[in-house]
C-alpha cells in the first residue's frame, strides 16, 4: 500500500523545571492511503504528543525533538521551516481536537472561522469562500447552514460544534486527518453520529485518518490497524482483528480485559491493572510495563526487548515471545 505518513524512531522530550520528561521514546509506525490507524493508550502515554508533533504544534521550548523522522508524502516534516509547515497544516494535514467547546473561537461567527482558512489556503474571495463554507457545513450535515454560519459557537450543541470542527478540518480536502479523541467529550448517541460522519467523509474524500483514543469500542468500530502505546513507547501493533482476537503483549491483553463489554456476562470479574504507569522523568531501563505485569520475568526489568513479527502486519515487543521464555518462567517460578 502507498504510504502517506511514516514516523521513524521519533523521540520527543520536554525540558521542565524538574528535569527532562521523555514523552515519546523512539516510536515508528506508518499510515497508508485511505487507511485508519488508531493510536491507543492511557493518559500520559504520549499519544497526543505524537499527534501534535506531526503537525508541529508542540511549544518549543519546552518540547524538543531528540531524534527521528516524520516522512509525509516523501518529505521529512522535521526539516521544514515554519512557513513551509503553514502550507501543510490545514491544507494537507488537518486536525480535529478533543474538546469542541474550547477549540472554536467563542467571539467569532462560525462562518467566519471556516472562511478564514479558505481565504488563506485557497485564495478565494469572500463571496466564494462563504459559498464554500455553506457547502462544507452541508457536507458534515449541519442543518440550515445558510443560517448557521451567522451564529456563534455557544449557539451550537457539543455534537454540532464537533461537526463544525470537522468541517474546518475538511475545507482543503487534506490527505491526512489527525483526530485526537474526537468523540471523548460527546454522548454515545452523538458519538455514533460523528463516527459515521468521519467514515463517510473518508470514503468520499479519499483520506487517511490517525485516530487517537482510549476507547477500545471506537477502535473496533473505526480502525484498520491499531498501535498500542505505553509510557512513550509502542508495545504492539497490528491489524484491528489481530489486536482484538490475538493480543500478544500482556498490556494489550489486560487493557482488553479491563473494560466491561455489553456482549459479555456481568458476572465475570473485571480485570484491573494494578498500579500506575511509570514516571517519565526517569523512564525505566527495561520494559515500562514491568511493575504492573503479572507475567514479568527478571530480564524484563533490565532490558527492553525488540519487536517480534507474528505476521506481516502484527508485531509486539515482549520477552514472552522469546523461545526461552517458557523455560525462564519455570526456573524462576513465575514473576521475578
Amino acid at each position, binding site marked *: 500500500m502507498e504510504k502517506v505518513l511514516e514516523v521513524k524512531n521519533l523521540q520527543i522530550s520536554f525540558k521542565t523545571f524538574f528535569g527532562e520528561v521523555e514523552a515519546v521514546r523512539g516510536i515508528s509506525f506508518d499510515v497508508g492511503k485511505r487507511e485508519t490507524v488508531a493510536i491507543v493508550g*492511557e*493518559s500520559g502515554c504520549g499519544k497526543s504528543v505524537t499527534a501534535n508533533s506531526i503537525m508541529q504544534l508542540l511549544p518549543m521550548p519546552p518540547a524538543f525533538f531528540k531524534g527521528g523522522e516524520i516522512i509525509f508524502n516523501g518529505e521529512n516534516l522535521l526539516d521544514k521551516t515554519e512557513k513551509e509547515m503553514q502550507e501543510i497544516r490545514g491544507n494537507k494535514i488537518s486536525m480535529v481536537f478533543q474538546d469542541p467547546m474550547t477549540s472554536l473561537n467563542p467571539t467569532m461567527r462560525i462562518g467566519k472561522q471556516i472562511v478564514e482558512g479558505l481565504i488563506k489556503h485557497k485564495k478565494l474571495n469572500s463571496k466564494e469562500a462563504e459559498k464554500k463554507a455553506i457547502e462544507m457545513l452541508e457536507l458534515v450535515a449541519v*442543518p440550515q447552514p445558510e443560517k448557521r454560519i451567522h451564529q456563534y459557537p455557544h449557539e451550537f*450543541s*457539543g*455534537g*454540532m460544534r464537533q461537526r463544525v470542527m470537522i468541517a474546518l478540518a475538511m475545507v482543503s480536502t487534506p490527505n491526512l486527518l489527525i483526530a485526537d479523541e474526537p468523540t471523548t467529550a460527546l*454522548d*454515545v*448517541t*452523538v*458519538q*455514533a*453520529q460523528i*463516527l*459515521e460522519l468521519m467514515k463517510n467523509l473518508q470514503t468520499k474524500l479519499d483520506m487517511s485518518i490517525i485516530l487517537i483514543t*482510549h*476507547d*477500545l*469500542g*471506537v*477502535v*473496533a*468500530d473505526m480502525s484498520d490497524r491499531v498501535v498500542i502505546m505505553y509510557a512513550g513507547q509502542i508495545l504492539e501493533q497490528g491489524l*484491528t*482483528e489481530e489486536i*482484538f*482476537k490475538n493480543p500478544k503483549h500482556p498490556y494489550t491483553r*489486560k*487493557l*482488553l480485559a*479491563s*473494560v*466491561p*463489554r*455489553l*456482549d459479555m456476562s*456481568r458476572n465475570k*470479574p*473485571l*480485570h*484491573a*491493572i*494494578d498500579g*500506575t504507569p511509570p514516571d517519565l522523568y526517569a523512564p525505566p531501563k527495561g520494559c515500562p510495563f514491568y511493575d504492573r505485569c503479572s507475567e514479568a520475568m527478571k530480564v524484563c526489568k533490565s532490558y527492553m526487548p525488540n519487536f517480534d513479527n507474528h505476521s506481516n502486519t502484527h508485531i509486539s515487543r515482549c520477552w514472552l515471545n522469546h523461545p526461552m521464555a517458557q523455560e525462564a518462567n519455570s526456573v524462576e517460578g513465575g514473576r521475578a
Partner: protein
Amino acid sequence: MVEPLISARNIKKHFDVGEGMLKAVDGISFDIYPGETFGLVGESGCGKSTAGRTIMRLYEPTDGELFFNNENIYTLPRREMQHVRKNFQMIFQDPYASLNPRMTVEDIIAEPLDIHQMYKNKEERNQRVLELLRLVGLGEEHVMRFPHEFSGGQRQRIGIARALALNPKFIICDEPISALDVSIQAQVVNLLKDLQNKLGLTYLFIAHDLSMVRYISDRVGVMYLGHMMELADSEELYLNPIHPYTKALLSAIPIPNPEIQRGRHRIMLEGDVPSPINPPEGCRFVDRCSYAVDKCKQVTPKLEKIKEKHLVACHRAKEMIK
C-alpha cells in the same frame, strides 16, 4: 418482601433561569433496596446528576417526597436533616476538584468525623483515618500528604474513604470513574464492589458509560430530559430494551470487538436533545422517535409496568415488545 431503603416519589427539581423554568428533573419515582446498586444512566443534560443531588437534598427539591427508612426527609428541619445525612454520602466525578488542595489527606478524611464529632480524642481520630485508608487500599505513609501528590485513581480512593467515614448506609456515586483511565476505572469499580460486600452498602450509581453501569448495577433506570423512560433489572434492560430511546442508546455503544461491532445495526438518532426549558406536554423523546404517534405529542406517558420488574414510559410499549 424487602422494604426499600430509599423511595423517591415524584421528585422534581426546577431551576428558574430567567427565560423560563428549566425542568432538570421532572417527576421521577423509584425504589432502591438495601444492599443493591441502582444505576442511573442518560446523556449529558438528562438530569441524572441533579437527581442525585436532589435525593441528597444538596438541592432543595421543587416537589416530591423522599423516604429513607420510611421517613420523608424532605420535610425535616435543617438540624435533623444534618443528623440523617450521616447515612447519605456522595462520591464525586472529578477527583481533582473534589478534594481541598490545601488540606492533608488526614484532614480531608477526618472532616466528616470533625463535623459530626465522632471521636473522643486525637488518638481515636487517627485510628479511624488509618482504618479508612487501609479499607480503600492506601496506607499509613499517605496520611500527611496533599492531594496533588496522588494520581487520579488514588485521589478517587481518598474521596471514597471520606465518604465511608461516617459509616453511611447509602452512597451516591456521581460519575465516579469517568475522569479515570480504563485500567484505573476497573480498580475503582472493583474497590466499590468489594466495599459493598464488606460493609453492606447501597449505591446509586450515576454514569453515562452504559457498559460500566450494566456491569456494576443490579437495576438500571434510563433518564431522558428529566423523565425516567425505562427501569428494569440490569440484565433484562440490556437484553430486552423496550423504549425506543433505550434501544437507540444501547445500539450506539461501540463493542470492543471488531467482528461484532462491524456487523451491528445502529439506530441513528437524528438531531440533538431538545432544550429542557419549558418543555411542552407529551413524551420528551417524541421529536426524535421513529415510532411516535399523535398521542405521544399530547399526553406524557407514565412509567408503567409492562412486564414483571420492567417499567417503561411509552404509549406504544406493548407493541414494542412484539
